[in-house]
């Protein structure tokens, strides 16, 4: 049996072609203003800039590591802009664009990568959870959280992000089972970026990932992950289903990680020559720019202003990153437990005494 993993089926949702042509689909109406379209473009440009700046900071030795999102901007902006403030997000570790849309300051994102914090940001403040680095395990937390939301009768949904590699984890498949059985209001958003470090999609699956949904009893949607409008439309649909009690959805966003898995990886060693060039033709930002131009939704001064804004943002990130304070040694013992633990207290006191001996 041979199943194509390339998006050629009529089920593949694309609203904006790589050339920036809008393709009408009657079942997916978009309720967007002209401003919304310009905002999408602004988000896409700014998060690419945040990402590029962070990669540069790692190269300059200011960050220990960075997981670039380059190429996945539309999948993240389109899905995150479909969320409401009260919805809750469980990211993996590459959702810098989602974080941006949730209002998490990019500098806070850098904290764990610079090693000045164990987590980085206040997850409850923006309903954006901490990054999870046990691949796929966040899908279980999202499912449990959604079950809690369901019990409260709240009209909130939960979105959990993961990748094509994580789709092979037991946790992810178990989360599908639980969410499906309990009809939990959770949207499983898989960014299929084609590569899990050095392993191509063919090492994870023999059928397109969205088709697995069928076996778990939830709808599976296949969307052009480099098309911000299509991603926004299908995520909005899935969120509505979750909020209205129709249960979970699996969205597979077909995209490409144009950069490295992390700054510790060199993708040119693993990937076929020419692949990146092919995907550059499907760049998520260029097609929106063409769309805005063709439809006269933005003029040159708009594009110039966004560019200037991104320069300012990069300047601020660079400066604030370098200014981050190192934590004090005794914070090592903070929040190991919610309640007092005698061993932690004893060892904290010993370290405090030791530190005091230098004074």
């Amino acid at each position: 049996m041979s199943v194509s993993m390339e998006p050629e089926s009529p089920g593949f949702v694309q609203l904006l072609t790589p050339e920036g042509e809008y393709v009408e689909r009657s079942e997916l109406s978009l309720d967007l203003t002209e401003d919304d379209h310009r905002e999408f473009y602004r988000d896409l440009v700014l998060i690419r800039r945040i990402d590029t700046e962070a990669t540069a900071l790692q190269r300059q030795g200011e960050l220990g590591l960075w997981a670039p999102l380059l190429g996945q901007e539309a999948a993240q902006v389109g899905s995150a802009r479909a969320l409401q403030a009260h919805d809750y997000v469980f990211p993996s570790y590459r959702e810098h664009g989602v974080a941006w849309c949730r209002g998490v300051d990019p500098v806070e994102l850098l904290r764990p990568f610079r090693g000045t914090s164990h987590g980085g940001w206040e997850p409850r403040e923006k309903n954006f959870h901490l990054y999870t680095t046990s691949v796929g395990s966040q899908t279980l937390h999202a499912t449990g959280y959604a079950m809690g939301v369901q019990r409260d009768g709240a009209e909130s949904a939960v979105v959990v992000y993961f990748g094509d590699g994580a789709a092979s984890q037991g946790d992810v498949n178990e989360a599908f089972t639980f969410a499906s059985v309990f009809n939990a209001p959770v949207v499983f958003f898989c960014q299929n970026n084609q590569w899990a470090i050095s392993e191509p999609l063919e090492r994870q699956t023999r059928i397109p990932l969205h088709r697995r949904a069928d076996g778990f009893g939830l709808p599976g949607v296949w969307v052009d992950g480099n098309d911000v409008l299509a991603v926004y439309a299908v995520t909005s649909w899935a969120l509505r289903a979750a909020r209205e009690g129709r249960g979970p959805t699996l969205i597979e966003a077909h995209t490409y990680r144009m950069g490295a898995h992390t700054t510790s990886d060199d993708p040119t060693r693993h990937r076929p020559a020419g692949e990146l060039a092919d995907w550059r033709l499907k760049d998520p930002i260029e097609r929106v720019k063409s769309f805005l131009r063709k439809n006269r939704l933005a003029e040159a001064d708009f594009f110039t202003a966004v560019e200037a804004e991104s320069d300012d943002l990069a300047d601020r990130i660079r400066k604030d990153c370098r200014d981050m304070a190192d934590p004090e040694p005794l914070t090592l013992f903070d929040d190991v437990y919610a309640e007092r633990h005698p061993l932690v207290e004893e060892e904290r006191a010993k370290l405090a005494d030791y530190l005091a001996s230098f004074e």
Partner: protein
Amino acid sequence: MPQLKYWQAINQAMAEELERDPATCLLGEDVGAAGGAFGASAKLQERFGEWRVRDTPISEATIVGAALGASMSGLRPIVEVMFFDFMAVAMDQVVNQAAKISFMSAGKYHAPMVVRTMAGTGRGTGPQHGQNLEGWLAHVPGLKVVWASEPADAKGLLKSAIRDDDPVVVIESLALWSRRGEVPEDPDHLVPIGRAAIRRAGRDVTVVSWGAAVHRALAAAAELEPEVDVEVVDLRSLSPLDREGLFASVEKTGRLVVVHEAVGSFGPGAEIASLAADECFDALRAPVRRVTPPFAPVPFPPQLEKAYFPQVTDIVAAVRDVTRRAA
């Protein structure tokens, strides 16, 4: 005071806490309609509904992981992992997720959840249903680990665990399942986590144990009477561990025997022996002895199982050994 069996005390603790706090809920395999594989949650679903007492698909990782997510949304889940051995299936969620959430979120989240699990030890349950893995768990910062040897503690420790804002692993003993004891009716009967109990006061040797092994330590102490006056300390909590209680007893007796049903090598007895050596060196009059199973998996055949787990005679021999060596 009413007499209850060990499992009934567990059942009562959950019933009272489900009644007391609507955020409390119970998740696991067979915990609902069946009332638990061994009856610990009998009639709870009937009383509190399918939402709060929920049968789940069979996946220990997801039961624990979903409970963690649910705890972030404001619930206080109790989950049941049917056998201690199956904790291995859920270890990422227990060790990397639940134990770390407070630390990594700078205290913005806690995991006020309880993982109940049962050691099948001593019931012919074999290599994959009879292990004692408490050392794995007590080794992890962020977790608390308790184990009751008496029905009253089974109730009081579980209730404390449910009200605790940290993730607590509550280990139960199948071998004690039908053991009877007086159990306070007080709905606020709480046994503090981190406090040992002296089950038998003595002057000559301290025997430290927990779970079902405590009763064998007590039987050994009775057998040694009046030759040796044994103090039996029931640790009750491995993390936090009652260091003051342990040290006070060892300072008094000068001799220490640790009895546990976990394999000896890299086991909790080594930690306890090391603590005693560090803090009570001058008081110790003999080397610390451990009475534990050998470095082999739990066997199925009953005669091998009996040889494998510490018996009263093994404890008696160890106590005699430390008294003979005494200076």
